[in-house]
């Protein structure tokens, strides 16, 4: 997983694609795979009760679980759904680009993503930094900001900062409002300073978060405890590190690499049917327009 890259990638993409892309759907796509799942990975407690996934890593990235949200096909299906609702291709493909960026970025850790789901449940991983989501948010943060994940996010902090022109009010008026239907529509009722703050918020959040977690992990607490065990946040920039934490690997999640008979192929077939129906309707509409 990445802690700041998903916030900052959209600005770099925006810089390269300009008004050909809609920023807000791009950002939504970049957040989408984790949006409804991350809280269940770390767990949430209230009034003495805690709700948490039994196997957080499998739930987040594996199958059975919601690991399919990190696949390319999920992005395509969501983009088709979005196109079906708003009928604007720019919203659909902007979301798709954001979601694909997220799924590809998360391949960097030791667990990886089921990028080609539903064709295979194999987890594709580069293994550069340790996946430690099952150890709770604080130890996970400490591990992430002690390994190459910290460097990876740093690359995005620098890259997005070098793309600072996309954050200016002049660029926002010229490119973002033109490219993104939301900002054009919202500009009729909301003030420009508020819309600019909304547009800049992910950059603000990503950079502040990266700095805050790093300072917290290495200069404030230096370690955290999970289930009675103490983890010291020592910087370890070796491949697959930090090695003071037990990193999960694809073999810890999915037993089978290829889909067998049963549920998953059925889900895939439903997906195929949806895609075919959408494609047929799109073709009909285009031919009607030509007439």
């Amino acid at each position: 997983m990445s802690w700041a890259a998903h916030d900052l990638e959209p600005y770099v993409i925006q810089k390269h694609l300009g008004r050909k892309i809609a920023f807000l759907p791009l950002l939504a796509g970049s957040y989408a795979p984790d949006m409804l799942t991350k809280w269940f990975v770390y767990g949430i407690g209230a009034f003495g009760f805690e709700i948490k996934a039994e196997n957080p890593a499998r739930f987040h990235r594996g199958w059975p679980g919601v690991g399919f949200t990190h696949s390319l096909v999920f992005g395509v299906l969501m983009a088709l759904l979005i196109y079906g609702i708003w009928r604007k291709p720019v919203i659909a493909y902007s979301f798709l680009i954001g979601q694909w960026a997220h799924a590809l970025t998360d391949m960097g850790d030791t667990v990886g993503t089921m990028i080609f789901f539903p064709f295979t449940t194999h987890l594709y991983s580069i293994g550069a930094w340790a996946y430690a989501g099952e150890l709770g948010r604080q130890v996970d943060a400490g591990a992430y900001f002690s390994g190459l994940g910290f460097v990876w996010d740093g690359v995005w902090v620098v890259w997005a900062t070098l793309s600072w022109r996309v954050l200016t009010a002049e660029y926002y008026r010229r490119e973002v409002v033109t490219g993104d239907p939301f900002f054009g529509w919202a500009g009729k009722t909301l003030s420009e300073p508020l819309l600019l703050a909304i547009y800049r918020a992910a950059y603000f959040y990503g950079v502040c978060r990266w700095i805050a977690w790093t300072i917290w992990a290495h200069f404030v607490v230096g370690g955290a405890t999970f289930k009675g065990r103490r983890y010291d946040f020592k910087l370890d920039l070796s491949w697959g590190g930090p090695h003071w934490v037990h990193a999960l690997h694809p073999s810890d999640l999915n037993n089978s690499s290829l889909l067998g008979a049963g549920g998953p192929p059925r889900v895939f077939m439903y997906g195929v049917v949806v895609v075919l129906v959408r494609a047929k309707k799109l073709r009909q509409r285009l031919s009607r327009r030509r007439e």
Partner: protein
Amino acid sequence: MRSLLLYLAAGVSYTVLGIYNQNFLYSYFEGLAFLCGFVVGVPWVIRRLWR
């Protein structure tokens, strides 16, 4: 320039707040609300009180 300084002040405040209590760093929506409050809400309140 005034706008940049306001954003910088918001960034420093949010980072310090996040270090003090990491609950503020958990979600993008918290960052969004903080930034909008800091760079739009606070100046609006000050302008209202100034009048």
